[in-house]
Structure formats: structure tokens, C-alpha cells
């Protein structure tokens, strides 16, 4: 009996030991990796389409080939990236370098979870000379990462539809941006019912529209830049006072509501949710103009259509919004130096072809200001001639940063904001009423802004 119990315990001990051996074996191998002259292993995590995966795989391969001491393994995360990152953070199994959604990058930057770039800045010119808006800071003067790419909102349109309607193309220079009325006029003329009448004709049938003048999504990417253009914002400059009930903000949202329900030049929220991607909408002539990010150039260029790119209409000032995920290094990395080397490689336009195919715009300023550098990524079929003014100059001169990156507690704020704005975009209530009712819900959630320099 005793001996049998002993055998049983022994077996149990072996079992448990086998289990606990897994991680400790891994531990020792990564310790070994830290020794000089041995390979340093880094993990890089990112999201994106298969197109992006191909480009990223190529980038990682050329990095590994040119850096014999470092081996980067890439992991594309399909599905809900936020959930994955939160889980990894909670269980402390973070990768070394990763993409992060802007709100998480700001939050974790402030919490000290991201590697401080300050000591690396002075030795690396490519880190210093980046677009000011692309930086994330843990505290004033302490950068902890950049946007992966620079992306702003623009107008895409189908040129053929403008020719058919005998209309001037949307302006591609910020200084010549359409006023809201000019824009509305064009949208009306581009909206057609099944009898071929446009929205300015008498007898236009709004119930049977076959071609809409304009389509927009209902999140910050559409109304964000327009708010900025009218001098309005979700909060005041300190990020502690709700200001979406200002007359300027109300005007923006009322104008958007009117596009759908008064002038019938845009599909309503329900139709919007069931529409295909913007490139298909334009190609199939369901819609003449859409608002979308510069990243959509990739999709647009893959259709055979005759598309063009323009700046957004303005209320007061021509403005667009900088919307992009972040790339960061987690402060838990064991190899910050190597991670930093990879970091600078991973969004270097000379190494990644995502710039040339239209998905990304560089974050280094020289790619916006020096002609040969500009040509290096824009002189190709994917980038239309107006790209220089409608995207490059627009990004440099007319950009505000997205509230999802700048405003603290944005996910919680958006959880209140989005359902309320649904009321506007489904015509349940006028914009003014919704926006003043929102004050009491949003104001308790406001806790300031993240540092922006």
C-alpha cells in the first residue's frame, strides 16, 4: 500500500513537473538569446489584410536577411485586435514591437507600458524628423511611438459621373476647397432617381434613388474633420468641458442629417450599413462621391474605374483629420536596442512597398517636402496626379488629430456618443436636441487630453 501510494505520488510529481517544464524551458532559451553573438528573437504583432501581410512578411524577411544577429517573427492578428492586445497585456505576454489602436497607444503610453523614445531620438535622425502629429507621448516631451502611417480623410469620386452631369471636378487643393453649399449643390446634381431626374429637378422621386451624390460613414472619420473645419470639437482645448452643443457643432451635424433626410443626396444609416465598400460603390455608380481615408487608394486603384481624389468641403477653414493606428515598442521588451532598429525599419518607405501601392503614407517629413523623396513613393499608377495637393500638402498643412488618439477615456465616451448620434442619422431627433442631451452623459467621462508635444 505505502509503495503504491509512493508510485502514485511519483507519477503525479512527474506529471506536474512535465507541465511546469514548458515555460521554464522557454525561459532558459530566451536567456541564452540575450548572450552576445547569439540571435536575438523579437516578436512583431500587426493587423491588416492579406495584401498587408504579404508586404509585412517581405519587410520582415529583408530585415532578417540584413540583420544577422536579430530574428523577427511576425504575427498577423485576425479579428478583434483590441481584445487580443488587452489579453496579452493582462497576462503579461506582450510582443516586442506591435501595432496598437490609437486609443490604446495613448492610454498605455501614459501608463508607462510603452518604451520611452527619448534616449534614442538624438542618434536617429529618422525618428526626429517625423510629422509632429504622428507622435504619441507619455508625458510632455517624452515620445513613446508614432503612427504606423500617416492617413488623412479625403474625398474620392468617379470622374465619369461628373462628366455625365457636366460638373466641375471637386477641388484638390485645400485653398480652393468647396464651401458646404457648393458641395451640396454638386451632390444634388449627382443624385438621380430611377426616372433619371436629379435632386434639383421638380418631380424628383426621393423614394427611388438609384445614384446618390455622396456617402459618408457615421463615425468620427466623417464628422470629425467637419467639426474641426467649423471650429468645433467634442470638448474644449483642455478636454474637460463638453462643447458639442455649440452652434458650430450643431450646424455640422444638422448639415449631415439634412444630406440624408432633407435633400436625399446620401443613403440613410440602414442603407449605409448594407452597402459594399466605397470603391465598389463608386465603380458601380451607386454613389458619385465618398469620404474615406487615404489608405483606400489601394482599393480604388485596383478597380478599373476613372477615379479622382479631392479635399473635403469646408465650413470655415479647410481641415482634415489624421486617423491612424500606432506602432510602438512595449517597455517589457528585453532587447530595446534591437527592437528600436526593427521599429525604424518596419515603416521605412525604402523597405516596405505598402507606400507605393497606396495603402500607407510615410511619417517622415522629408517624404512630404523633398521632391525626389516624394517621387520615390508617389510616382506610380496607384497615385493620381492630384495626390500631391489633395493628400501630401493637405496632410502637412490642414490636419487635426483624431479624438480617439487625443482625448482621454475615448472608448467610454464613444460608447455614449455613437448610439446618440444614431438618433441624428436615423432622423429620430434634430441634431440640436441630441447634442444638448448628450452633455450630461459625456461630461462625467471627460478627464482631459493626452500630451501632444
Amino acid at each position, binding site marked *: *500500500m505505502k509503495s*503504491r*501510494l509512493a508510485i*502514485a505520488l511519483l*507519477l*503525479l510529481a512527474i*506529471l506536474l513537473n512535465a507541465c511546469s517544464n514548458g515555460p521554464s524551458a522557454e525561459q532558459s532559451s530566451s536567456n541564452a538569446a540575450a548572450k552576445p553573438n547569439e540571435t536575438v528573437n523579437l516578436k512583431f504583432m500587426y493587423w491588416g489584410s492579406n495584401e498587408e501581410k504579404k508586404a509585412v512578411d517581405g519587410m520582415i524577411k529583408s530585415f532578417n536577411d540584413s540583420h544577422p544577429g536579430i530574428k523577427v517573427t511576425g504575427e498577423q492578428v485576425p479579428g*478583434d485586435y*483590441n*481584445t487580443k492586445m*488587452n*489579453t496579452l*497585456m*493582462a497576462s503579461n505576454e506582450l510582443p516586442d514591437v506591435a501595432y496598437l489602436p490609437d486609443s*490604446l497607444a495613448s*492610454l*498605455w503610453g501614459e*501608463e508607462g*507600458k510603452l518604451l520611452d523614445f527619448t534616449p534614442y531620438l538624438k542618434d536617429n535622425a529618422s525618428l526626429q524628423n517625423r510629422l509632429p502629429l504622428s507622435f504619441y507621448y507619455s508625458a510632455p516631451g517624452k515620445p513613446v511611438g508614432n503612427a504606423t502611417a500617416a492617413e488623412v480623410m479625403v474625398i474620392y469620386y468617379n470622374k465619369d459621373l461628373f462628366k455625365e452631369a457636366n460638373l466641375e471636378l471637386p477641388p484638390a487643393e485645400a485653398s480652393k476647397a468647396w464651401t458646404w453649399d457648393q458641395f451640396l449643390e454638386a451632390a444634388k446634381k449627382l443624385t438621380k432617381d430611377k426616372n433619371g431626374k436629379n435632386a434639383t429637378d421638380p418631380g424628383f422621386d426621393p423614394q427611388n434613388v438609384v445614384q446618390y451624390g455622396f456617402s459618408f460613414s457615421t463615425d468620427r472619420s466623417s464628422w470629425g474633420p467637419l467639426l474641426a473645419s467649423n471650429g468645433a470639437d467634442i470638448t474644449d482645448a483642455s478636454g474637460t468641458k463638453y462643447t458639442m452643443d455649440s452652434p458650430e457643432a450643431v450646424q455640422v451635424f444638422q448639415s449631415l442629417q439634412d444630406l440624408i433626410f432633407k435633400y436625399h443626396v446620401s443613403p440613410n*444609416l*440602414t*442603407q449605409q*450599413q*448594407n452597402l459594399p465598400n466605397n470603391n465598389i460603390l463608386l465603380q458601380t455608380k451607386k454613389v458619385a462621391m465618398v469620404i474615406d481615408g487615404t489608405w483606400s487608394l489601394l482599393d480604388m486603384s485596383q478597380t478599373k474605374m476613372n477615379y479622382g481624389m479631392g479635399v473635403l468641403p469646408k465650413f470655415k477653414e479647410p481641415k482634415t483629420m489624421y486617423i491612424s493606428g500606432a506602432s510602438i515598442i512595449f517597455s517589457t521588451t528585453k532587447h530595446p536596442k534591437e527592437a528600436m532598429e526593427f521599429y525604424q525599419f518596419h515603416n521605412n518607405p525604402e523597405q516596405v512597398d505598402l507606400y507605393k501601392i497606396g495603402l500607407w503614407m510615410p511619417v517622415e517629413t522629408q517624404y512630404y517636402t523633398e521632391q525626389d523623396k516624394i517621387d520615390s513613393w508617389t510616382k506610380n499608377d496607384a497615385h493620381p496626379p492630384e495626390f500631391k495637393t489633395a493628400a501630401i500638402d493637405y496632410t502637412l498643412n490642414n490636419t487635426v488629430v483624431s479624438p480617439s488618439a487625443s482625448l482621454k477615456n475615448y*472608448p*467610454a465616451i464613444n*460608447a455614449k456618443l*455613437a*448610439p*446618440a448620434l*444614431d*438618433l441624428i442619422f*436615423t432622423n*429620430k431627433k434634430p441634431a440640436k436636441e441630441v447634442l444638448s442631451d448628450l452633455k450630461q452623459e459625456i461630461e462625467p467621462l471627460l478627464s482631459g487630453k493626452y500630451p501632444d508635444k
Partner: protein
Amino acid sequence: MKSGPTGLSRLERNWGILFALPPILGLCIFTVGPVIASFFISMTDWTIGSSWTFTGMDNYKTIFTEDPLFAKSLFATVYYSIGSIPLGLLLAFLVAFLLNQKVRGLSVFRTIYYLPAIVPSLANTMLWIWIFNPDFGLLNAVLKAAGLPTSQWIYGESTAIPSLILMSTWGIGNSVIIFLAGLQGVPSHLYEAVEVDGGGAWRKFIHITVPSMTPTIFFNLVLSLIGTFQIFNEAYIMTQGGPNNATLFYVFYLYRKAFTESKIGYASALAWILFLIIMVLTLVVFKTSSKWVYYEEGGKS
């Protein structure tokens, strides 16, 4: 060592425990451990990526006193459950009853009714997104053809949950199978007794079939109660909780708190409240079951 079980049974007992250890350990490590941990986490203000402090019952207090979305999500979930459970049970019972008749092509019908249950839930929701499409969906096309007014379905604030209830009837296949098994277990001598007494089909159904089926109904009721309170996919894939939070189901709200807002402490508290709600409801069903569930052998529930 001197008395008690013989050597062989001792041997069996000891080795039995050893062989049962993997699932026991699995349960402890992967279920009981996290459950206890989540209770502890629910009493902290932990936001993922930040340091946390122990806040006692604060999360629970906030949920009950300051969180309008808690009430809203609970309402959406209860509304959905109250709609879909009775409807699902009734339909499943009816279908099982029909499938229990001796008709031609029975196996074809059985296959047809069970088919949706083996379609992955994700594929199912994608399919229904199309069916519900207000412009070119199947449902509105049928309504239009019949000259009836169309609906916004899942895109309308008031029609969203009824639409999802309608969709839930698609997945009754599993309940049907269980009911069918129950129906086939109804002893035939009871039917014969009714026939001898001159009772018709209706009497057979009301006095024999239904009472004999109460244990199966009870089982299906408990299962669907637990299932519907955890509805998630529909909100996550089809509606994102909208429009205007109409389909903000409890588990979806919890998920959003935990993984969009990173507020894991608060989300754990929400999870515990859901656990208590489901437990209480299940207990109530169990307690009342002695009043309406009939066991042929005279067994007590």
C-alpha cells in the same frame, strides 16, 4: 490497513483517483481558479495596463446606481429571453411532435429541421443579415410581394429584438432532437389505455404526451434559459449593440467594457451579477419543477 475494503478495491480506488486527476486539475485550474480570480478582480478598479487598487464593492455600487447601460442591457437580454424561450420551446415541441408521426420522407424532414443547428453560428448570422436587409432582403421582398408594409428589421430600434427572436427560431434543431427522443420514450401502454377508454387523439396528447414530456420540457427550459441569457454573436456581428443600444445584450456589454474600454474589474463585476441572475432563475425553475414535472417512476425532482 487491517479492515475495510479489500486490496483490489483499494487499488482501484487509488488508481481511480489518479486517473481522474487530469479532468479534476483541469476543472480547478481552468474553471474554479478563474472564477475565484474574477471575483477578486471584480473588487478592484483594474484597467488593463494600469496599476489597480482594491475598491471593495464600489464596482457593484456603480453598476446598480450610476450605470444606465446596465439596466438597458439587462432589459434587452430579458426581453430577448422572454420572447425566444417560450416561442422556441413551443415550436420545437410542435416540430418534434410532427416529426414523430409516421409519414413518408420522414428522414428528409428530420434532416431539414436539424440542418440549421449544425450550421456554424457565424454563417447563420451572415445569412440572416441578408434576409433582414431592408432593401433587397428576403423578408421585405416577400412582404412587398404580398402588398404588406415592410420593416427595418434589425436596423430599427423597436424591431431589432423581435427580429432576433424570429431568427432564434431557426436554431431549434437541438431542442427538437431532445423532444423527439422524449416523445419516443412515452410508454405505449398508456396510449393503449386511453384507446381502451375510448379517448381520441386530443385526449392522448393532453393527458399522456404532455405530462410524459414534462421532464424533457424542463430540461430544454433550463438549457435555453442559460443559453439565451448569454446571447452574444447576434449583437457582436449583426448590430454592434445598436441601433441606439437597443440590442446591447448583457454579455456584449460586458465584452465591450472588458476589451474595448479595458475595464476588466468592472467587467468582472458585471459577469458575477450575470452569474447570480442565471443561478437564481435556474433555482427558481428547479424549485417550481416539483409542481409541474412528472416522473413516471414516481421519482422526485
